[in-house]
């Protein structure tokens, strides 16, 4: 029998892990590893990826299976660099293109973002909505990657959510179907898993700071293992109705190697009582 980890303790640890405290982050990793801050990580990881030969599954694709956590530098709160505030950690930002680390909003969309930023109760995640792509990879707590033949599954601790990514070359759902969980279609490009998302309902936010998507958004995620315990995660977001050009973010996933670890249940809606305080307007 193992002992039950205290969920509140784990929440605290998770908060510490996503908090951008570079000295702390550097203490827990191999000094030869890429730094976790997004811009230098992105450059370093793309270089490492050229030479690393990943472990492989029985059908020959890179084996990502196991427990992972995103080193997301406070980006769960804000994708852009931010000083933080009350109960909100600072963010070093995860946008690696454009180089100013800002999401290239069109003026009207930027105004909307700034308005949403003051209305955190509208954040769909506060209503236990699935977080969509790429946001799900920025939720606190970790996830398990499972690779049955022809699929890559992400089984998240957060809100018992999941992603099913088929890699059999199928096409997207008919456009009329709009989902909270965008339709994922994957493929392997060399040793990189590439996932294309469509059929978004456009109601998801990207973070807790009002950065947002629309139903016209398309997201392409790329996952590449750069050493046995690190995945380079990159996502390019495109939406001609919101942004002046496509933009890209990147973070590291690090492997959880704790013996006999398994994920606890994170039920969100069950017994939910926040709605009566934050307002139950549909997000």
């Amino acid at each position, binding site marked *: 029998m193992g002992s039950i980890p205290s969920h509140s303790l784990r929440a605290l640890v998770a908060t510490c892990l996503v908090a951008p405290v570079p000295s702390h982050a550097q203490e827990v990793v191999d000094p030869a590893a890429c730094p976790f801050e997004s811009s230098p990580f992105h450059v370093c990881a793309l270089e490492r990826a050229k030479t690393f030969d990943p472990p492989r599954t029985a059908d020959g694709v890179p084996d990502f299976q196991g427990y992972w956590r995103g080193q997301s530098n406070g980006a769960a709160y804000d994708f852009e660099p931010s000083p933080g505030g009350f109960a909100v950690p600072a963010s070093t930002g995860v946008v690696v293109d454009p180089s100013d680390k800002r999401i290239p909003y069109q003026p009207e969309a930027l105004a909307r973002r700034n308005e949403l930023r003051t209305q955190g109760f509208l954040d769909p995640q506060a209503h236990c909505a699935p977080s969509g792509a790429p946001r799900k990879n920025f939720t606190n707590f970790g996830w398990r990657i499972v690779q049955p033949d022809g699929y890559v599954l992400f089984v998240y601790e957060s809100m018992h959510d999941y992603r*099913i990514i088929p890699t059999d070359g199928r096409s997207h759902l008919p456009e009329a179907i709009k989902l909270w969980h965008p339709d994922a279609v994957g493929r392997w490009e060399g040793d990189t898993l590439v996932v294309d998302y469509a059929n978004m309902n456009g109601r998801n936010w990207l973070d807790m700071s009002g950065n947002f998507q629309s139903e016209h958004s398309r997201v392409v995620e790329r996952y590449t293992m750069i050493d046995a315990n690190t995945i380079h995660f990159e996502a390019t977001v495109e939406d001609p109705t919101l942004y002046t050009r496509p933009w890209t973010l990147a973070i590291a996933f690090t492997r959880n190697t704790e013996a006999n670890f398994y994920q606890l249940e994170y*039920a969100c809606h069950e017994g939910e009582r926040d709605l009566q305080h934050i307002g139950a307007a549909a997000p």
Partner: protein
Amino acid sequence: MTNARPARLVTAVIAMTVISISIASAQPGAYEPPRLRDGKPDLQGIWQVRNTANWDLEHHAGSYGIPAGLGVVIDPADGAIPYQPWAAERQQQNFNERETEDPVAKCYIAGVPRTMYVPHPLQIFQTPAEVVILSEYVHTTRWIPLTTLPRYEGYESWIGDSRGRWDGDTLVIETVGFNGQTWLDHSGNFHSSALRVVERLTRTEPDVISYEATLEDPNVFTRPWTIRMPLYLHRDRDRLLENECYLYAEDAGRPIIGQHPEP
């Protein structure tokens, strides 16, 4: 059936032996399922029941919000859940309050075994080390390691803490660690946190998994009892969509708040 396991190692090499052994160890003329690389039966696909178990596990005529249906309890033979007297009364009270108090009416996680027979498709995935069952219903995740991973002592949850193993060609899933807040159906059949569920999944035809679950709960029942039903393979869809029940309730202006959904 456990003595078939060493034989299976040999049979992975010699295909003809596979057939003769599985016939010898199962029912005469038993269906030979498709197999994975490791020789285990392939249960993967999108499955769903076609019965009324979600509304009532016992034999029942129709009533408000409940379609009539044959029961799925195969033991005891009379098809009735063997409640202790106090629990039978509690079930009747649950039945009367089902419209508001059924956890699934509140879009809560359906628990085990109900996740397997809510009226939504689920997809089964397998690797040699684990089984993952994902349901459309409120994106429910069941993760079932096929190992003896030690359990977290005292851990309780809505979906329970599962461990799986193969018994011949049957996937056996043993689940404990429930929080006692889920119901077994819309009619208020229920259990406590002491529930122990042993499920048995056997692919008996190309499009059928025979699904069986034995429920044991000394706080609520007088003895263990068993349900059985077919899960049918979907041939009209290649992926799950989603059922974000509580968000739909918000959209409809009927947000589900705390324990008391608004009328």
